[in-house]
């Protein structure tokens, strides 16, 4: 548990991504632990932030803020969203540590990376 908290703090510090964790219940071992989450925005044909570092078990949600549809597809096809229209979201929970490069299959110059610790 302590290790998890440290990773979370580290991830937040590195990426500046908002990690939403119910801290009260998180600390109370009797309560179920909420799933930590992180967000990536798609704006101006780019993923922001382009790289995020998260602890294992984190759910990442991508939100398309462009007027053009985009997709979120991992290079090894582990995860693959449908086309996201404006304000559509796609989420994926990263269970295992590793590095997950991804891109938009419609505009492949758009690339990003999720590092799971």
């Amino acid at each position, binding site marked *: 548990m302590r290790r998890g908290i440290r990773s979370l703090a580290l991830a937040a510090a590195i990426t500046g991504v908002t990690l939403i964790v119910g801290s009260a219940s998180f600390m109370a071992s009797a309560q179920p632990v909420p799933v930590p989450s992180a967000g990536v925005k798609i704006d*101006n*044909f*780019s993923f922001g932030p382009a790289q995020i570092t998260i602890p294992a078990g984190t759910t990442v949600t991508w939100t398309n803020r*462009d*007027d*053009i*549809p985009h997709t979120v597809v991992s*290079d090894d096809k582990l995860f693959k969203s*449908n*086309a996201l*229209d*404006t304000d559509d979201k796609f989420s994926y929970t990263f269970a295992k540590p590793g590095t997950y*490069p*991804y*891109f938009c*299959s*419609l*505009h*492949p*110059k758009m*690339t990003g990376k999720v590092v799971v610790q």
Partner: protein
Amino acid sequence: MVERKKDEILHDHNNDRVDRRGFLKCMAWAGTGALYVMQGGVLKSYSMSALSKLGSTAAAAGELSFVQISDSHMGFNKPANPDVVGTLKTAVEKINGLSMAPEFVIHTGDISHLSKPEEFDTVDQILRGASAKDVFFVPGEHDMLNDDGKQYLERYGKGSNGSGWYSFDKKGVHFIGLVNVMNLKAGGLGTLGHDQLEWLEHDVKHLRSSTPIVVFAHIPLWAVYPEWGWGTEDSAQALSYLKKFGSVAVLNGHIHQTMQKVEGNVTFHTAASTAFPQPQPGKAESPGPMVVPAEQLRSVLGITTVSYVQGRHALAVVDSTLA
């Protein structure tokens, strides 16, 4: 000594009385509302207002004329154009008003915005109002969403190969529709892929080098601006199979603006969208839809007319706006 004329041909590699300089000049004309046609071996340029006069002459000469439209993005409803139905209808009116009635229409992709059945239905219905009844499609990335192009192929891919590529002949001109929006790789550009390249090599192998070739595909087959993905990874390979031909025209869409380039015997041309404009390469943060004042919108949308004079090395590309 004969006095040197302004349009004198200085180099004539193909013995067809078109030299590179003359050709470039022609391309410089295209897009400014002028029409350039090679007739009787003589370069002629026409202003748009003289097109009606040319119409009868061209028809008599057995000219082939067709229209390219692109990027209708049916279903798009953002500020850059809340009425893509209206602008596509205007494009059809424009086609129907051409003095040289086109034999068919080529749509270079992004028919729909989100690959929804009703978006394709709407485009089909509007295009049925065009004087030219045959429409030849190639897909844009917006037409192959979520199902790897299954729906597109069911609707438009009859008789095509692979993800939708094919060729056909009209009045001695060989047309090749290519697909470069599938299986794109992270960090890369448009892709034709091995199977399609192999097919292309075979498709043109037995054609005479004097056959005029028209290639059409969604993403430009030349490096317009790779930073925005405006190019095709393996286009050089495709073009290498077309080197022997005296006249190759490459028609693309995707970048929502007209642009052209001449390289040897290959003329590259991109068409305007009928839906919304995109910024010039590098002139904005991203290639997203560009909002212009409502009263200017139709002046940055358009159609492209292409004409060939049969039996001669002749090409005319005219961009007309919807304004």
